[in-house]
């Protein structure tokens, strides 16, 4: 199977869906002539014309709102935020319009829109450009929140997001664009991954690690370290936070009896707290230890590289949490 990057997978997903459905179009800052700030929309302008690949001014509230309006009248917009940090400028459109119109119009208007772009801390871009906002969006009924960790998931889930009749907040890992994975090279309906279905990224018997996006990779690295000590980790990637595949997490924890939730966001009211609630709700009798959470520290991201590493979950933090949950420390 061909191995492609996460970036290429996203590009292919949009390309295939734009070919499949003429109502799909892309709008955002630098998505056209510049081929995307992160080159995710590479070549789309050339192949689909300015009518369907639209360079927007630096006005997130404006083009997000245009997207919502376009969706109301039957188009299927893909709104790219240069990063999700800038989505905060447009959050009224996302939370108050996109998420609510279907319900407030008594089902008269579907909002088949995708808000996508890079998210999560990157490297030395400062507090305002280095944060994980998925917990905020996952809080909002009416939105779906997708957080793929691999190229395979990115492609299959973006295609499903574009085909979904509801607003989907599709948060890409800013530091994952160059990661690679095997992705089938089939027809337009190949490799679709349904929203709301998780994936076991590593099968293990001793403990369940729940993580999404970049933290899946951190957990897989930690699992390798722990395997050398004879600890067999299962890594569960829910892939979408809303709706959450509670079953896949619960079944894993029922098997292992222990759970560590790893997220790159802040601890307070982070999405991991919701996962922890679901786990204790459904797995109480299976738990051998308190559920552990590993998060970034509860501070705005520092700029200094050493501090930046310090506040974010590292392999050693996951290893330590696993050992706490196994009563090994």
């Amino acid at each position, binding site marked *: 199977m061909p191995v492609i990057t996460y970036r290429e997978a996203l590009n292919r997903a949009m390309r295939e869906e734009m070919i499949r459905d003429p109502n799909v179009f892309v709008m955002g800052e630098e998505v056209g002539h510049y081929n995307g700030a992160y080159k995710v929309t590479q070549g789309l302008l050339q192949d689909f014309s300015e009518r369907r690949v639209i360079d927007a001014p630096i006005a997130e509230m404006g083009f997000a709102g245009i997207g919502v309006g376009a969706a109301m009248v039957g188009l299927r917009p893909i709104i790219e935020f240069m990063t999700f940090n800038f989505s905060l400028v447009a959050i009224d459109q996302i939370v108050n319009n996109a998420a609510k119109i279907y319900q407030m119009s008594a089902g008269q208007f579907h909002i088949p829109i995708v808000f996508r772009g890079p998210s999560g801390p990157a490297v030395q871009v400062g507090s305002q450009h280095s944060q994980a906002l998925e917990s905020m969006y996952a809080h909002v009924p009416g939105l779906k929140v997708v957080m793929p960790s691999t190229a395979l998931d990115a492609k299959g889930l973006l295609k499903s997001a574009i085909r979904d009749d509801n607003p989907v907040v599709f948060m890409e890992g800013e530091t994952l664009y160059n990661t690679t994975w095997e992705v089938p090279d089939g027809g337009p309906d190949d490799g679709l991954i349904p929203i709301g279905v998780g994936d076991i990224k590593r099968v293990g018997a001793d403990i369940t690690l729940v993580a999404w996006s970049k933290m899946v990779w951190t957990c897989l690295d930690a699992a390798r370290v722990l395997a050398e000590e004879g600890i067999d980790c299962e890594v569960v990637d829910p892939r979408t936070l809303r709706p959450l595949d509670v079953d896949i997490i619960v079944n894993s924890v029922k098997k292992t009896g222990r759970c560590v939730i790893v997220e790159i966001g802040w601890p307070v009211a982070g999405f991991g707290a919701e996962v922890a609630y679901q786990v204790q709700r459904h797995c109480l*009798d*299976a738990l*051998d*230890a308190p559920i552990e959470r590993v998060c970034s520290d509860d501070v705005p991201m520092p700029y200094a590289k050493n501090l930046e590493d310090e506040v974010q979950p590292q392999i050693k933090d996951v290893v330590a949490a696993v050992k706490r949950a196994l*009563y090994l420390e």
Partner: protein
Amino acid sequence: MAQIIGLPKLSPTMEEGVLVRWTKKEGDKVSPGDLIAEVETDKANMDFNVEDDGVLLKLLVKEGDTVRLGAPVLILGKAGEDITALVAQAAALAAQPAAASAPVPAPKEAPAVVAAKPAPVKPTPVAPAPKPAAKVAAPAAKVAAPVGDKVLASPLAKSLAIELGIDLRTLTGSGPGGRIVERDVRAAVISDEQVALDTPVVEAEPTSSETAIAVRAKPAVDGTGAYEDFPASNMRKRIAARLTEAKRDVPHFYLQRQIDAAPLLAFRERLNALLGDRGKVSVNDLVVKAVALALRRVPECNASWEGDAIRRYHGVHVGIAVAIDDGLVTPVVRDADQKGLGSISAEVRDLADRAKRKGLKGHEITGSTFTVSNLGMLGIERFTAILNPPEAGILAVGAVLDVPVVKDGQVVAGKRMTVSMSCDHRVIDGALGARWLIAFADLLEHPESLAL
């Protein structure tokens, strides 16, 4: 009113305890649940919690003292109370001989020895404990009644304990604050409950740990010195119960057969020559493999009686009886029919080693579908084994003996091994069992087929 508090039963098997440390001193006010002392029992150091409000008026034993179960350890009451009479009474009670661990009737008028609360434990999962008996007139016998208090155990440890029939009160937690966690229950399974119950027990010579237990538990000696009672360990009790049940409830019958062991020994020699330093295959390893393949050939014997059905197992999992200190376990070689002799050999050695160190996990000693018990290496020519329910068959393997055999009308030297198969007649009839033994003998007498 002041009262004498006796040493509570902090483990189900304790008869006395050593007061390791007082955590409160005379004059301290205490409330129900307060830790007042640590007591070393036959199991571990246990917490001694007080059950009543009051002031510790007098501590009757010193740290390091050994105290009989139920014997007075402290006087609890209100500050300033006159306890002269109680102190005298406590001294009298303490002076009573060890036999007094049988119920001591409470004095009519004086305050009785009150059973203090046992360790922080939960009623056993099988039989919920009654509420604590009336506080007064609770002789030592009542002390044994578990009092419903919190056991510190993880939810998984609790559900596992129920599933495996382990009494959490007997365990010491290794988690934070003494929390009993999964590994504590699993460890108890190995050492305590899930002992295999199949064969005549091979009694090892008393080991140092047995001696230690015996000394601590003070064997009862009758006045004439005619006998000595060694309190049974939990494992021994469990073996006793399960073997009795198996022999009583399962209709056993026995089939015996001689096997020509010469080809087997020659084959083993060739294998070991090939293996060189990389390990050794034993006769028992070959027997295990042959049993597994014979069960494939005659799958009707890889089965159990289920009351209204005969359950035939898809997997062939062979249990192997291993003698350990004070008992035996049967670790399981899973899917033995699909494993090569080398891996069976390595696995059996590993399981047996860990069995002796009590290092097996629960899943490694459960789920066998047929058991092998081999006393050949101990010189036993032939024996019959008690079945290991729910299995329908167990094979007892005797020693390989040099015997005269008649071959072509001539008496010549031969090698023979006698095996005895015990069958559950509800599952296996005589002819079926014989068929299985034919398959088994055929495999062992043509041992090359074990490598196929």
